[in-house]
């Protein structure tokens, strides 16, 4: 009963697919192909087999630091950050006094531009006028205020502190999932005399398995492409203390202009991400029902 149905279906899909193909699929293909090529700003791509990958994985201290830091950040983010988000959600779901205010406040760091967050922490941690200085003075150690972004032994932790606590996305995801749990389940727990903590651990958490998997995947993917704050604050330094895959890729691609090598890092980044999603999905038995 619809005239020209086929025509309209094609016409409605085509623009999206066109943009997808030109800006996404084609570049993706090029990344894979040129990752096997010698290809710099001066040279056209020429096939060299696994050359780029060899120079990444054999005796490349920058790449191994980038890889190590990326893995560390993924581990920290998928555990500590997700856990903080879960705890806040479990507290807020009982709607304690001021819960809406807490939720709104907690969201704000997730709403503002990440570049602004980076600059904000540069100011906050500034050894000459930042909050760190006043805290050190308060404890009588005013002479030895550290430059938190400038010391290779702890800058990694300083950078981590700019994002690991801000887990509001996980909190709102879990809150909306908790809202969907049927209330009857809690009634019977109450009858059995379970207290709040027991209910949270033995009833609510197991019901949240699928959304927890989503949170862990989001946290991992977020860390695989984490760039903005590191770029603004340390650019991967000092040395390679805060170098990760995206920052290393940026340096090779935009400063050294070695496109072939940069694209092989891109392939590593993509494959690593897919692998993580697959593994996390398996661990959480994603999509399967609860027993």
């Amino acid at each position: 009963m619809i005239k020209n149905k086929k025509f309209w279906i094609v016409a409605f899909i085509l623009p999206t697919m066109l943009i997808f193909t030109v800006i996404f699929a084609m570049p993706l293909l090029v990344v894979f192909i040129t990752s096997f090529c010698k290809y710099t700003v001066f040279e056209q791509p020429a096939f060299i087999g696994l050359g780029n990958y060899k120079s990444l994985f054999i005796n490349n201290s920058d790449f191994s630091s980038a890889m190590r830091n990326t893995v560390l950040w993924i581990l920290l983010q998928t555990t500590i950050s997700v856990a903080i988000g879960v705890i806040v959600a479990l507290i807020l779901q009982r709607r304690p006094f001021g819960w809406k205010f807490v939720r709104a406040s907690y969201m704000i760091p997730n709403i503002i531009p990440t570049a602004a967050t980076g600059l904000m922490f540069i100011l906050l941690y500034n050894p000459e006028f930042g909050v760190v200085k006043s805290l050190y003075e308060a404890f009588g150690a005013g002479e030895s205020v550290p430059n938190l972004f400038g010391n290779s032994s702890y800058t990694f932790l300083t950078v981590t502190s700019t994002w690991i606590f801000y887990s509001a996305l996980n909190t709102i995801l879990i809150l909306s999932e908790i809202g969907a749990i049927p209330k009857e389940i809690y009634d019977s727990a109450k009858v059995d005399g379970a207290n709040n903590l027991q209910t949270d651990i033995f009833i609510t958490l197991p019901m949240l398995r699928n959304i927890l998997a989503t949170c862990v995947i989001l946290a991992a993917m977020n860390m695989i492409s984490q760039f903005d704050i590191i770029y603004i604050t340390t650019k991967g330094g000092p040395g390679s203390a805060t170098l990760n895959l995206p920052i290393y890729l940026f340096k090779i691609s935009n400063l050294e202009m070695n496109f072939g090598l940069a694209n092989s890092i891109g392939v590593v980044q993509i494959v690593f991400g897919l692998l993580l999603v697959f593994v996390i999905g398996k661990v959480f038995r994603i999509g399967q029902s609860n027993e």
Partner: protein
Amino acid sequence: MKRALLNILKYIFLLLIVLISIGPILWVALGSFKTNKELFSGGAFSLPSSLQFKNYIDALKIAPIGKFFCNSMIICIGNTVLSILIVSCCAYVVARFDFKFKNAIVLIISSVLLIPSQSISQPIFALFKALKLFDTKIGLILVYLAFSIPVTFYIMRSYFLSIPRSIEESAYIDGAGFLKTYTRIIIPLAKPGLATAGIVQFLGSWNEFYFALVLTSGNDARTIPIALNYYTSQFSSNYPAMFSAVILTVIPTIIIFVLAQEQVVESLTAGAVKG
């Protein structure tokens, strides 16, 4: 007794969460009114002596924030409008009709989510150089549009699925054509979904940093987050101006959040649950 202690701990924890969330921004906002002297000698928790806007004027002089602000507005509105216009059409036919390759299209669209943006930036850079789209607002709009496809698609598809089929069927019986039914009946009904998708895309492109950094070179297309980069590189000596620059950048996003808090929460939830 134990219960009361747990309660106190709970509130201390929540207080800490609030403190680390809005404390830094409030501190920067206060700092943006301090003079250079007050900043360096007053201690971090001192109050500015007066509400002076010199730092804001300085901030505007150091980087062309006004210009970047306009660029950001044009790019974000362009991307948001195009994204909901183009991708909704695709989401609509996928939600409503059965056809060959339908599942393949859904799969293809989901794949965008799994690719870190940096990994394919070099070919996009090369492509844009060749097409003369490098360092243009249109270029950034197109890239943001491509990366916006999955989220807008998922939000709109689930919204279209919630609209009963009978509404369109009666329109067709009344003799309305396909396009008319879509634009006159479906789109008005889908407004809340469009708003949700719009908010996600606007905030996302307002905050985007990486492509804005690698796909621009001059002031014609640079966006607000890139302006912040100016303060950490060439002109890092003017700290009071850095304070005001941060505030100028975060204000639009906070205004959106305050005006449409429930919708932002809903948008981010919908935008995240896709994989």
